């Protein structure tokens, strides 16, 4: 790629920013090439990287300094830039946003961690909280047990279905065509049931369980909060 091609591509890539900003950037880089001198042209192009990179950095900065701090999605850009670590002095929208996300993630992890801890220490604090938590934990684990049971049943059904189908086909070849077709048919039906079971299982695991888990976590945190308030009251 030579200078003219580089500038041409850059111009195209900057077509979605304001005329003023585009012209400013293009002027700058034209000057840059001029000042570097013809013999440095290849070096400059190599150093600058692709026109795409140059354009991305320009645009990322424009977005950063614009009034609308709401969106911050270009983590990739940040990585591409030479100054990816913004923790020093200036606070800008993107940074705050990122910090906020991290906090929220931490919060969730905390709740999950607390829940796991709760399960483990529940026998210990059983006496103290009157066994209520133990019951809750058991109840909470029940859906998982049910899902596990359904899973096992589906597996068995699959095995039975495949065996019956295989045996039926086998019987077809060894003479008793009627029984064979019957066997294969039953195999197909069992397989269908197993498939339906599988769909149900997936639905339960992806929709119902998370919902139950959420409710359970909410319930627990309410319970803990109330206890803490009570203690604080005493």
């Amino acid at each position, binding site marked *: 790629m030579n200078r003219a091609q580089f500038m041409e591509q850059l111009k195209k890539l900057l077509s979605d920013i304001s005329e003023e*900003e585009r012209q*400013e*950037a293009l*002027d*700058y*880089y034209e*000057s*840059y090439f*001029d*000042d*570097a001198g013809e013999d440095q042209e290849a070096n*400059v192009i190599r*150093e*600058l*990287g692709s026109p795409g*990179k*140059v354009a991305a*950095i*320009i645009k*990322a*900065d*424009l977005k950063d*300094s614009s009034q609308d701090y709401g969106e911050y999605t270009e983590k990739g850009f940040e990585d591409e*830039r*030479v*100054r*990816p*670590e*913004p*923790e*020093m*002095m*200036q606070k*800008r929208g993107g940074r705050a946003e990122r910090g906020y996300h991290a906090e929220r993630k931490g919060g969730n992890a905390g709740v999950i961690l607390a829940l796991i801890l709760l399960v483990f220490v529940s026998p210990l604090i059983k006496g103290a909280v009157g066994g209520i938590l133990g019951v809750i934990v058991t109840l909470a684990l029940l859906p998982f047990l049910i899902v596990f049971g359904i899973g096992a049943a589906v597996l068995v059904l699959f095995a039975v279905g495949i065996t019956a189908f295989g045996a039926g086909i086998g019987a077809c070849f060894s003479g008793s065509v009627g029984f064979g077709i019957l066997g294969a048919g039953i195999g197909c039906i069992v397989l269908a049931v197993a498939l339906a079971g599988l769909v149900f299982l997936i639905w339960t695991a992806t929709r119902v369980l998370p919902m139950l888990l959420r409710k359970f976590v909410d319930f627990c945190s309410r319970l803990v909060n109330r206890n803490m308030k009570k203690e604080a009251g005493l």
Partner: protein
Amino acid sequence: MVFNTGAALLDAIVLAVVSKEEEGTYGYKITQDVRSVLEVSESTLYPVLRRLQKDECLETYDMAYAGRNRRYYKITEKGTAQLNLYRVEWKNYSTKISKLFEGGIEL
């Protein structure tokens, strides 16, 4: 370099480089000067210059050079004030870190 250069530090370095030239200096030279002390990609500096210009820390003027227009950047009063602020901040920051590294600080 193992340490990252934050946006504020890069601003400070660019302001310092530009402030060295009373008559102003131009993009290519600024880039070379910054790169003599810090490993930065050449494409990093344009947005910095543009932003500092918009923040009125730098002002620009065009002057004919070798039959074309060259854009010069010059530090403004606001830019000088900002640079002084950065200098103080940097002094505090770097002194503490250096002390810590050299074992002189009580934690």
